[in-house]
């Protein structure tokens, strides 16, 4: 991995992005992966480690019969949202140890459609607070719509991906 993703030459690297979905998919190896990548960073200033949360990471679901066409559905059981929040909170736990070893800023980014931004930010704030990290992460959102969303959130799950060029 050190050979594959060695960032020692990239002096201008400011942001390291990682999707929440791929952290879940990697399970307990995600922590070692991030530590290894961070250990190779040679940037003179602290990097931002950005975790990207897609709509379905935060309880959003499409094609709900109760919602307007094109809108993201949040008609979920509260238990499901709680389970998701708990899972993300556990993921953030791995940063406790990393804060001691490396200087970086954690950013939680909601990469969701407009209609989900408010819900997502509130959920991420709750997750961040519950995780009790030594430094409060920055919480932000990217403006997205169904029309402009990319499909690369599929990456990392299985071999049966749909990768249209629409993911511009």
């Amino acid at each position, binding site marked *: 991995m050190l050979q594959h*993703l060695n960032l020692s030459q990239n002096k201008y690297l*400011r942001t390291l992005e990682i999707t929440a979905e791929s952290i879940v998919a990697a399970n307990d*190896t995600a922590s070692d992966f991030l530590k290894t990548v961070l250990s190779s960073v040679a940037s003179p200033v602290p990097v931002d480690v950005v975790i990207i949360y897609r709509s379905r990471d935060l309880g959003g679901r499409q094609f709900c019969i109760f919602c307007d066409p094109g809108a993201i559905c949040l008609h979920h059981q509260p238990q499901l949202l709680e389970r998701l929040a708990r899972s993300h909170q556990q993921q953030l736990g791995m940063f406790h140890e990393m804060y001691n*070893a490396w200087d970086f800023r954690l950013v939680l980014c909601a990469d969701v459609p407009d209609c989900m931004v408010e819900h997502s930010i509130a959920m991420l704030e709750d997750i961040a607070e519950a995780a009790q990290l030594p430094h409060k992460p920055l919480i932000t959102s990217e403006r997205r719509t169904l029309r402009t969303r990319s499909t690369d959130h599929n990456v990392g799950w299985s071999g049966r991906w749909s990768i*249209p*060029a*629409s*993911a511009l």
Partner: protein
Amino acid sequence: MNQLWYRTKAKIVCLLFQGTSEASTARPSPIAKLPQELVESIISYLVYDKSSLLACSMTCYSWYIASVSPLHYSLATDDKPPAFRGAKGHPWPGPLRKSYELGLLPLVKRFQIRLQGSDRSAFTSDQLNSRTLRYFTALTNLQELGIDYLQIPSFMPNIQRYFGHFSPTLRLLALGEPSGSCRQILYFISLFPNLQDLKLQYRFPSDEQESPVDTTLVPLSTPPLRGRLILTCFTRENLVKEMIAFFGGLRFRNMDLFRVKCARLLLDACADTLETLRVYPTDPYGEEFRERKASELK
């Protein structure tokens, strides 16, 4: 654009007044007196909301002018059967023809040709006969082009005839499963001298041997490529090497790499420019990290 506006206006009048004489006596709305820059500022809040844009475009001429551009920003065709999209699909060249007939193609900034990858689906020169090529060349202000299953060899050697008109404006190129030799893909990329972002995606990593380099194909330009590079299941190391050789290095500021065999080569090539990198812990090319304890690396 004016022609389309008058057609739209006629529709509005017809809908509102259903042919009564009120149409001629109705007072103009005060909204029509707003300065154009204010209207554009208002519309800018709605650029992602298609239904609101549609509603705005039906109010008056100034609102129509402000909303028509974001409304027709993106155009896509696909080969999905109707069941995938409810009532109707968008088969090639339907949406292109319709927009051409309405004179809207110069407004399109993003064009996508989405294909499912079945045995018969590939984007070849057969799809661009004299009529469809006329529609295609009417995309005069295109900034983002996405094509699935582009068969570059089928367009050779006159590929410039098909895609050359995008040269001045194209900034982003996204290819899903493009086929062709490394030099042909490089040549295709070099058709666009202002290209900033590049996306090459394959479904699975391939271990196929590269075909011999066609040295007669010399890239036409050196695109800046200073934006974002997205590679998925990419094993064509020779293409990267050729890009570095012909384009005098790589200068991407942002990279998103998954299952990329030559990640190290790319990272080193962009050592002086890379600012943002997206990585995936599930990347199988990073398997070795499990063998080392993270504590050894601190």
